[in-house]
């Protein structure tokens, strides 16, 4: 199903990842190398409220797309021939979980004072869920994207904890538990289905790498304080990621961060000239 055909009501404004990266408002805050300021999403940031609202809206639309992606995997593949029956059961379970996450995000957005459509909807998540191979979908969605969700929810949970918002902290913790389950589903199925097909496993892991890099959002996730989100290593390990895999994702994030900074410097130099 093409991403353009995702059904939405008139409140939603959809954009692509290219649109998002071209938006100058998404530049890193300040010149971190000079000011040594952290970009981590914490209540101490001057734009903390707005950034948290924008992130919550991003989580909300991301959960809708995750719901749609899991549902399509139930539908797109012939049971038994293209996808095992039990894999589809897991995807149906994930659809239910994502539906609850949308409900939670809606309630939290309301709590935080934002509305549906206040921010744009980046459709990149669903694009990663459109592969013709169910194993690639599991690698791209369950391992890469849901892995990112672990990082984001951990940050948001900490944000709630520091800000003294038990409502936010409570909800994020519950969603985090589900995400660890989803990543583990992806890890387990990837291992099981490609047990005797190393080529397919290699392809799936390569696809996961591409999605991981795409979702490093120009360096928004890494071990550096300059990134908005840290790598939630402990929860990732619970979900089946090895230490090497976590290191690799952290490296990808740093690489993306440096690339983004170089681009910014180029733009600044061009503007100065």
């Amino acid at each position, binding site marked *: *199903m093409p991403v353009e*055909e*995702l*059904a*939405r*009501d008139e409140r939603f404004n959809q954009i692509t990842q290219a649109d998002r990266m071209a938006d100058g408002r998404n530049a890193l805050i300040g010149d971190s190398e000079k000011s040594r300021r952290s970009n981590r999403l914490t209540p101490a940031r001057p734009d903390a409220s707005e950034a948290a609202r924008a992130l919550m809206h991003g989580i909300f639309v991301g959960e*809708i797309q995750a*719901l*749609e992606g*899991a*549902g*399509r*995997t*139930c*539908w*797109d593949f012939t*049971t*038994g021939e293209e996808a095992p*029956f039990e894999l*589809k*059961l897991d*995807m*149906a*379970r994930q*659809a*239910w979980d*994502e*539906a*609850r996450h*949308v*409900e939670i995000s809606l309630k939290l957005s309301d709590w935080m004072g934002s509305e*549906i459509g206040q921010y744009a909807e980046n459709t990149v998540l*669903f694009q990663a869920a459109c592969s013709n191979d169910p194993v690639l979908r599991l690698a791209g969605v369950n391992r890469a994207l849901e892995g990112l969700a672990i990082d984001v929810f951990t940050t948001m949970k900490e944000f709630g904890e520091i800000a003294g918002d038990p409502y936010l902290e409570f909800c994020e913790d519950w969603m985090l538990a589900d995400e660890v389950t989803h990543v583990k589903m992806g890890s387990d199925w990837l291992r099981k289905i490609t047990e005797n097909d190393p080529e397919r496993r290699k392809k799936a892991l390569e696809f996961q790498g591409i999605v991981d890099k795409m979702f490093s959002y120009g360096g928004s996730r890494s071990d550096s304080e300059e990134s908005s989100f840290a790598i939630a290593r402990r929860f990732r390990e619970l979900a089946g990621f090895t230490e090497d895999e976590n290191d690799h994702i952290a490296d990808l994030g740093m690489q993306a961060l440096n690339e983004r900074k170089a681009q910014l410097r180029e733009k600044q130099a061009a503007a100065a000239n």
Partner: protein
Amino acid sequence: MADPTKPRASFAPWDRRELPGSFSVEETARRVGNYKWAETKLFEVLGGWIATVPELDIKLRLGTHCYKHAWHAELWHKRLPELREMNPARLTVPANDALVRFIDAMTEPEDASLTIEKLVGVYRVYIPHFISAYTYHLNNTSEITDMPTIRSLKFILQDEFEDWRDGEMLIQSLLETPEHVDRAAAHQAKLEKLMLEAGGIAGHGSIGINTQAPQGALS
């Protein structure tokens, strides 16, 4: 203190369960295989439609219901080997070709403007037929020998009733003009005719009508 050596009746006075039932092991396995096939088709289409429905509340309900029917399919999948069917795929089949035609027609609406048709197919035709077939099975199987099926049927029926009510309320909330009512009724009639031909989710005899006594039944 009660005397531990005093004999008691094997069945308590309030336990009125009966041994006879209408279905043999083979007939039960056949029905359960049909149920699994029908529930699988249902959770698959509900999952597929999530992305095609623009109404946010309905999108979320479909996600929730998708899982419930997947769980029903899983319960039937696990019941089959207990009914001596060690290859569950062998009996995971549609009751007949007419039921396949029904599923094709029910899953046909894809466009974002066809939410009424999607919901009518599932909640006004398909799910009511689950409720009737399951109720017939529940009321006619042996309350002692087939207790595992009864336990699953009771759990599943509770879901079916809740989902039917959810779906019906969603449909009512979408019917804003007489034309909408006509659309819903026309689609329902079209699908109900196909289901009539199929005889129900377990074929003719799904609710006992037009069925011969299955072989091996103890009545």
